[in-house]
């Protein structure tokens, strides 16, 4: 079972990202579970969501305390206490950032994607979530990108869908294919 924690800010589509990732698992006959660590937060406040992906039904409902991966939708959140808590040694961190990031423990593998810029360019809105998911799936190869596209197609339609599909295709080219494929066997 893979456990992923997504950190973002209210308004960045954190929960939708978690839902899409878990939903994508069902597209390839695997099981997913996603839920937010909801607060009474408003736009801009740090928010967290959890995703589990497994080959059999998922029973547990506790919060993800020791994730295999982190997806950070806002670079500044790296400096918020607790964001890296529990990440398994060797675990991967995908950060929405314009520049490569240094200064994070060597225990972890870090990748970056300028997701906000990409989203702004293709969607016309600074919503980084789908671009990050595309990069995440490309890096880890845990689910085919097409599963994400299909999950997206069940939730959105029309121009929003088309633009997001374009964004996913573009984001996938920005990170090395399957660079983290070995990482997951290590951590899992």
């Amino acid at each position, binding site marked *: 079972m893979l456990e992923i924690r997504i950190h973002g800010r209210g308004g960045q589509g954190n929960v939708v990202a978690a839902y899409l990732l878990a939903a994508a698992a069902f597209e390839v006959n695997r099981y997913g579970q996603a839920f937010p660590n909801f607060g009474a937060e408003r736009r801009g406040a740090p928010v967290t969501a959890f995703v589990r992906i497994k080959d059999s039904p998922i029973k*547990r*409902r506790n919060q993800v305390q020791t994730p295999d991966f982190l997806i950070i939708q806002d670079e500044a959140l790296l400096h918020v206490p607790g964001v890296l808590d529990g990440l398994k040694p060797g675990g991967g961190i995908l950060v929405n950032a314009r520049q490569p990031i240094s200064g994070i423990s060597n225990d972890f593998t870090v990748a970056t994607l300028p997701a906000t810029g990409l989203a702004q360019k293709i969607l016309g809105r600074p919503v980084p979530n789908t671009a990050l998911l595309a990069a995440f799936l490309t890096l880890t190869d845990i689910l085919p990108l097409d599963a994400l596209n299909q999950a997206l197609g069940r939730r959105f339609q029309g121009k929003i869908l088309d633009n997001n599909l374009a964004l996913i295709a573009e984001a996938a080219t920005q990170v090395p294919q399957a660079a983290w494929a070995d990482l997951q066997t290590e951590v899992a």
Partner: protein
Amino acid sequence: MLEALEGSQALARAVALCRPQVISAYPITPQTHIVENISKLVADGKLDCEFVSVESEFSAASVALGAAMAGSRAYTASASQGILLMAEVLYNIAGSRVPLVLTCANRAVSSPLSIWNDQQDSMSVRDAGWIQLYCADNQEAVDTTIQAYRIAERCELPVMVCVDGFTLTHTLEGIDVPEPEQVDGFLPAYQFSRTLTPTNPISMGTLVSPDFYPEARHSHHQALLNAATEIIAADEDWGEVCGRRYGGLLKTMGDPEAKTVILSMGSVLGTLQASLQEYPQQESIKLVQLRCFRPFPRQAIQQACAGAERVIVLERALSPGSGGIVGNEVLAALSEVETRPQLFNCAAGLGGRDIPLDIVPRLLDAASQATPGHFQILDVQLDKLPQEDR
């Protein structure tokens, strides 16, 4: 086919499959997504019903009551403060023996204010005379909602389907949403023997003098006890249709011969199961998911705990000044058996505190240290409290 759905979305679909004619609701976290999803189904023409957006939960329950009396299948949903604001109407609905289904997206009750999950809300209205069913996951919530309408209408009693707020309502997971034909075959069109109609005018809700009041209460009590049969039958019959069964009144898992039983209600059962796998214990353990809290299945609990030396009741609410609520009732039920197991009672996960994966070893640990019968809040961190409050 499994669809990836948020719990609330799945519940809305389940409600729509039951073809309610009147839905009334007032927004409250974490129930809101359910009624939002229903509103969308109505707006998209996928559900033909009168959706009444009322000005309070008090009116939400009242509109549903008026609608059911006037001959329509009705639905409402709420949580926490909303359930408490409804309380007077909930008693009235049940006392009038009106079939209704309400989803309670379980949430803590203020004060202190908490929007997160525990079961203090539904527990607080346990004496209102409703059937109360607690769901372990969203698939069960979907299936139980469908079963609830048949139970309600056959027993002429309202049914509260309790679904843990956030933990279930806001969790996306795989759901097999039944086909409309399956539900239509299982659930006949709404019929209520005391429907108000000008062609056969009756008076409902009249004053009842002491000459008749105890009889009214007795028949209500008896109706709830009798409902157990219908609850089991609904689970069986719906199981025939969809292939999923939930054990009727309660479900047991694990070693049937186990000397230790852990009994709980709601979504914590999944974590308990995972915990048992993740932390194998030397002693064998049986899990009991108490699905039906009202009527309280005394005999089923006695059977489920037969042979056990120790019963641990884990609950998500408490009666301050007394202790566990479910625990006290289980204790009373077990006091009737010959070899009475020791009972350890605790609450955990109050106000949304995460129940961690090592819950089983924690429970066993706490139980081995506690004096039987003693109630405690398992995950309380006393060092956060001033000395005099510990």
